[in-house]
């Protein structure tokens, strides 16, 4: 019987090339068709390895399907379909190709079964992500793309070193398996993956890329790169204890900046880092329940943040900014967009009835099982911060009266609204019928997310956090962020570090010039001395006194040598 054993991601990569030549009307069909075909390939295949071969003595497994990569694959491919509808509202063949390449690399990396193929597919996805930023028409996107390329380059280098060290143990160690985070090869790979998910000190790349990408590009960037990292951590480092404190820091940093950042697209990227932190903490806990919760939470995080970025992208598309301080009047001019921002804000805040609640309740249960009190508190409190910082802040800002003279503003294009509504609908659909999501998780899971105590606690967190925040905002006690960029780690390397680098470079250039001048003088003097000496040797009788002196010295030296040998 004929059976296709093609990696679903390869379909998307091939489509990326076709998208560069396809006319505008055909591109959306191509993107959606490719995603549907990939989804069919994924769902049609039985669990297990297929399409394996050997290359230079190394096993190459191009397709290895199991419950872990299946749930990530379904989420990413559904996200690609929605993102394709969203992207059809504007014209950019390069960005369409880049989105397909990024998605294709990420989906390929999910389903390969060996380390070398994983590195190749993951790097391709990183390249696609940088291309998405480069293709953005937004000012400063080129520099942001270069920075993203550097981050992905560093990540690729680290993972390549780790894989090379691992392969030195033998060809069979190329097959994907659990790695030791404390070993040197595992340490390199873990560091690379922590960069990919936006761990502390490497968390700035995501908001930088999302803030500089177009509306469609930012939606795709908030889904594919970091979720591939979450998958890889679940694949390689389940139950690695180091992940728990790292994830706790991600939750705190992400929550803080999500509430503080004025640019709501960047704030949403920080929120994504915080929710990714929840997934990674659960991977670090490593129990079957925690791993299932991590996979489920990754799925719902993909849905909800895609919906939020698309809704915010509508404002970016029309206004040219998503700074909360500049959204006055948006509620009247773009009411559907404002409603979508609020609904998707509820989705990322894990409100009951939305998909994230189903996985969030599971995450709390897994943390409680190990009595991780601090982690439990962080996971439980995070929705309150996201609700206040993303949903309520955006709605309050959008409903401020605009300044006089503000021009007319139309709603976002129909395709963008449709995609945003689809994203929100998907969050609600999974939220109201979470059994479908639980059915995708590994193992039999019997869990009631709508138990009264779970729903009650979540409503308390959101209701009390929202009421206090709105009351303080209404009383004018919530400070509006100052104009300008909120300092983060990238402020160092684009601020003091960059200035220090320029200063150091100038000093080194001057030092090099001075050293060159000194060396030139030294060589010139040595050359003059040497030429004088050579001239003297060439013309030994030019000066009789000098020649006789040289002759006497030479004769004395020869006599001394002969005498020495005679005595010896």
């Amino acid at each position: 019987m004929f059976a296709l054993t093609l990696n679903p991601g390869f379909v998307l990569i091939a489509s990326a090339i076709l998208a560069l030549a396809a006319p505008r009307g055909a591109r959306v069909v191509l993107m959606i068709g490719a995603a549907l075909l990939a989804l069919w390939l994924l769902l049609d295949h039985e669990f297990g390895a297929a399409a394996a071969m050997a290359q230079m003595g190394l096993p190459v497994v191009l397709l290895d399907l199991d419950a872990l990569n299946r749930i990530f694959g379904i989420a990413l491919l559904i996200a690609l379909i929605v993102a394709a509808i969203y992207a059809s509202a504007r014209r950019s063949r390069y960005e369409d190709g880049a989105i397909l390449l990024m998605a294709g690399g990420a989906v390929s990396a999910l389903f390969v079964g060996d380390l070398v193929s994983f590195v190749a597919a993951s790097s391709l996805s990183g390249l696609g992500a940088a291309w998405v930023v480069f293709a953005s028409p937004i000012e400063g996107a080129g520099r942001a793309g270069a920075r993203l390329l550097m981050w992905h380059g560093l990540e690729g280098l680290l993972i390549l070193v780790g894989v090379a060290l691992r392969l030195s143990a033998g060809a069979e160690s190329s097959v994907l398996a659990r790695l030791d985070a404390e070993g040197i090869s595992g340490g390199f790979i873990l560091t690379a993956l922590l960069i990919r998910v936006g761990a502390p000190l490497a968390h700035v790349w995501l908001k930088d890329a999302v803030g500089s990408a177009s509306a469609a590009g930012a939606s795709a960037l908030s889904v594919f790169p970091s979720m591939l990292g979450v998958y890889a951590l679940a694949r390689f480092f389940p139950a690695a204890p180091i992940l728990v404190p790292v994830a706790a820091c991600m939750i705190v940093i992400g929550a803080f900046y999500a509430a503080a950042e004025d640019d709501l697209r960047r704030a949403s990227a920080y929120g994504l880092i915080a929710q990714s932190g929840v997934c990674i903490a659960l991977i670090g806990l490593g129990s079957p329940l925690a791993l299932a919760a991590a996979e489920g939470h990754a799925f719902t995080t993909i849905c909800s943040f895609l919906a939020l970025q698309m809704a915010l992208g509508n404002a970016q598309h029309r206004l040219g900014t998503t700074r909360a301080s500049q959204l006055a009047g948006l509620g009247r001019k773009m009411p559907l967009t404002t409603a979508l921002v609020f609904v998707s804000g509820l989705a990322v805040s894990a409100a009951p009835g939305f998909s994230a609640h189903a996985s969030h309740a599971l995450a709390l249960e897994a943390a409680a099982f190990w009595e991780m009190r601090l982690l439990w508190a962080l996971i439980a409190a995070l929705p309150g911060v996201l609700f206040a910082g993303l949903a309520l802040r955006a709605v309050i800002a959008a409903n401020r009266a605009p300044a006089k003279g503000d021009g007319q503003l139309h709603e976002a294009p129909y395709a963008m609204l449709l995609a945003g509504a689809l994203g929100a609908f998907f969050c609600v659909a999974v939220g109201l019928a979470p059994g479908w999501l639980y059915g995708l998780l590994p193992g039999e899971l019997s869990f009631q997310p709508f138990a009264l105590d779970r729903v009650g606690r979540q409503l308390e967190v959101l209701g009390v956090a929202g009421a206090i925040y709105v009351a303080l905002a209404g009383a004018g006690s919530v400070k509006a962020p100052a104009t300008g960029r909120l300092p983060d780690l990238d402020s160092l390397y684009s601020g003091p570090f960059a200035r220090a680098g320029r200063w150091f470079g100038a000093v080194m250039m001057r030092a090099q010039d001075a050293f060159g001048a000194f060396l030139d003088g030294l060589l010139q003097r040595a050359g003059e001395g040497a030429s004088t000496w050579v001239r003297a040797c060439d013309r030994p009788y030019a000066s009789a006194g000098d020649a006789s002196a040289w002759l006497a010295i030479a004769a004395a030296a020869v006599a001394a040598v002969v005498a020495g040998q005679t005595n010896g």
Partner: protein
Amino acid sequence: MSSNQARGGIVGVLIVICLALAGAGVVFDLAADAGPPFWIGSARGGGAALGAVSAVFAVLGAYAANAFGRGGAKASGEGSKDVRPDA
């Protein structure tokens, strides 16, 4: 209509929604027959306390942004509408 009036309208609506959520949460929490809490944060009313902490955290974040965000460079990407000719 002034800026404050416009904000007052939506603030009122949002406060009502949030208080309704909080009230429903408290009622559900009290009505639930949950097992013994594994720490005080998961006890009855713990969600409300965590919500209050969340709100304070968000407000402090805004204060920090106001204090440290001034005078910085304009963020990249600002002021550029996402429109372009076909490529």
